[in-house]
């Protein structure tokens, strides 16, 4: 059904998208000189006081990166990035690492308060005591530009043997764990952006859940890019040892700026026998303005390895931000009976571009994967679902179910579905379903006749469309995500 001319006009007339996280924080920073060379890599490593093996690893990565080219296969287009025209290290200026929240720059704490991120451990604890058993607490690691500024609940988690800290801290305190697992899922030769990350990553979160431990609270990292002309390269490493369980959430925002900023993160997950990792993302990087100026380039490599039998890794992502998203959270299902899941909502409006999806690599017997992808495109946005389901010869009895639904708003946006299926085992069962729909004028009029204004109607319809995915988010964030869905599409009609 063709869109009403009015709807199209309104889409065209979209003004500045309301992005409430667009402010910047005036804070003194330590910034490395612009450019990228071995000295910068050494500078970062020295700043972090890293052991020799890590510097060597970074340098190896940097040398490989110099021989690599940017991947061209994604359905996104952008002017060439000058990798020499950015800062690869920016940190809030501090004499030494903060020992407690009281030593953290109050400006920083204010920023996080503005973003609604609770860092004040004592406040949360106070709140938790009163509401024991009602809502689980959330432990937060906050990463500002390149540096982890505060991690809450550390002490409480340590009692159970859980390690939740900045990866730079883990390098110092738990070098054996880091050395064993860093790069074990995403090797330093993996791809252009991941390799760049290996060379210049500055911080990120580290999680280790010991054998048999069920993490009693949501772990959460909050990423914020503040400094102009910086790239953000975090590295997250989560290890769930045998029989453990952890749910982790990351959130991201950035100030409104006219230039594009690069965000090339790497996330590695490792699940041993019977372990479960649930990784949720609410990505709300600045998407650029209505004319397509500015916004974050989100070129991220996320991969989980189900190493042990009966292990499970579940990715849930709500992607509303970034000018360009290039991201394929994947699962390597190595252990027998292991399970991989990918639930995704991607919303693109105005000139946003997203090429996102997943890879499910079935290696072990009876491995199962589920992919549910919901893409919503409005304005002049282009969106591609790109997914690979690969069944290796020994993956006896492997199963996959994929469902890709696209929703279009207006007639100038696009949705594309590119599934790759490779099966080398005859017993495998693979299902792929795909639909494309439009918000019809009938639906909008029906809602409006019931008193619901057009924008609220769009939000209602889109939330209904995404319901299967949103219900996978931890309770605390589901409501937030629903609101975000509405805000992201403001101005797309009516």
């Amino acid at each position: 059904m063709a869109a009403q001319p009015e709807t199209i006009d309104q889409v065209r007339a979209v003004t500045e998208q309301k992005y409430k996280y667009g402010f910047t924080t005036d804070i003194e920073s330590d910034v490395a000189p612009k450019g990228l060379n071995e000295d910068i890599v050494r500078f970062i490593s020295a700043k972090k006081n890293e052991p020799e093996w890590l510097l060597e690893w970074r340098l190896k990565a940097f040398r490989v990166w110099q021989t690599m080219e940017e991947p061209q296969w994604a359905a996104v287009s952008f002017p060439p990035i000058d990798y020499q025209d950015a800062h690869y290290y920016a940190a809030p200026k501090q004499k030494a690492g903060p020992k407690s929240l009281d030593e953290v720059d109050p400006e920083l704490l204010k920023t996080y308060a503005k973003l609604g991120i609770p860092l004040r451990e004592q406040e949360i604890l106070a709140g938790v005591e009163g509401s024991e058993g009602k809502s689980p607490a959330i432990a937060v690691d906050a990463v500002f530009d390149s540096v982890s500024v505060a991690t809450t609940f550390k002490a409480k988690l340590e009692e159970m043997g859980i390690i939740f800290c900045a990866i730079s801290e883990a390098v110092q305190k738990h070098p054996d764990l880091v050395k064993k697992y860093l790069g074990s899922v995403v090797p330093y030769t993996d791809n252009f952006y991941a390799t760049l990350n290996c060379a210049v990553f500055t911080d990120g979160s580290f999680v280790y859940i010991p054998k048999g431990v069920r993490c009693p609270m949501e772990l959460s990292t909050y990423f914020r890019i503040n400094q102009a002309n910086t790239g953000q390269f975090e590295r997250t490493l989560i290890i769930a040892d045998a029989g453990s369980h952890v749910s982790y959430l990351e959130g991201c925002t950035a100030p409104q700026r006219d230039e594009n900023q690069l965000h090339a993160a790497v996330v590695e997950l490792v699940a041993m026998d019977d372990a479960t990792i649930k990784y949720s993302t609410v990505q709300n990087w600045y998407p650029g303005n209505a004319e397509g100026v500015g916004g974050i380039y989100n070129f991220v490599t996320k991969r989980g390895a189900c190493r042990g039998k009966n292990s499970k890794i579940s990715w849930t992502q709500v992607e509303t931000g970034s000018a360009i998203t290039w991201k394929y959270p994947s699962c390597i299902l190595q252990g027998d009976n292991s399970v991989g899941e990918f639930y995704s909502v991607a919303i693109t409006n105005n000139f946003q571009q997203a090429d996102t999806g997943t890879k499910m690599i079935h290696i072990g017997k009876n491995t199962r994967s589920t992919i549910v992808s919901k893409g919503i495109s409005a304005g002049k946005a282009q969106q591609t679902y790109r997914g690979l389901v690969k069944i290796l010869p020994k993956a006896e009895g492997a199963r996959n179910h994929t469902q890709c639904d696209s929703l279009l708003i207006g007639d100038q946006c696009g949705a594309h579905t590119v599934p790759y299926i490779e099966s080398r085992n005859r017993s495998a069962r693979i299902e792929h379903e795909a639909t494309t729909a439009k918000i019809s004028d009938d639906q909008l009029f029906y809602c409006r006749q019931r008193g619901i204004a057009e924008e609220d109607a769009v939000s209602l319809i889109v939330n209904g469309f995404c319901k299967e995915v949103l219900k996978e988010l931890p309770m605390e964030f589901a409501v937030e995500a629903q609101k975000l869905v509405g805000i992201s599409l403001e101005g797309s009609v009516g």
Partner: protein
Amino acid sequence: MIEIKNLHAKVDGKDILKGVDLTIRPGEVHAIMGPNGAGKSTLSYVLAGREGYEVTEGSVTYYGKDLLALEPEQRAAEGVFLAFQYPVEIPGVANTTFLKTAINAMRKHRGEKELDAMQFLKLIREKTKALGMSDEMLKRAVNVGFSGGEKKRNETLQMAVLEPKFAILDETDSGLDIDALKIVAEGVNALRSPERSMLVITHYQRLLDYIVPDHVHVLAAGRVVKSGGKELALELEKNGYRDFGVNEAA
């Protein structure tokens, strides 16, 4: 009171309504009958404010307000309700969510306090019970997988919850067998009140056996060509619309 005066409307550049006059007082039930293509559904869409239905002449005064100047959602909040001939499916949105969003949007528009979850639940339980409907229907996505009868009952439920001042029932009988028709008509009759006016649009007299109107109007070629009491419907049933210059096999 609703006063429709000399209403002309175009759809896709084609004149459909060519001077409709109609006055509906509070509590009255009016039936509009007419052959296919007479403009019956156009009239209902024009009153509800659907885009693409262009009013070229005339006026609609709704309790002193210029109805045509209002957005569809404003008309709804002012009490105009359209029971759709083909209720629309909204996948993934539970009936309760839809109704709660609707009622609170209207309350907000009228400057009333929004209902919280408990108040809403109480209200909706009451209404479903009064209509003899099951709670199960509330959990299902709006009209998705509903039978024809269930869709029309769902429209009735929405009407009961939203409590309009002026309800337009567009071909409510279409697609219903006689049992379903009776159930829906019962629901509608239960909602008749001295404050609520209704405009029942239908092709067949059958519906008017169950929803008995105060006035019957014949719409043909975009105009009200005859008005009368409920007996006019029976006359039409017998003679068809031929007397009005319309050739149609009944």
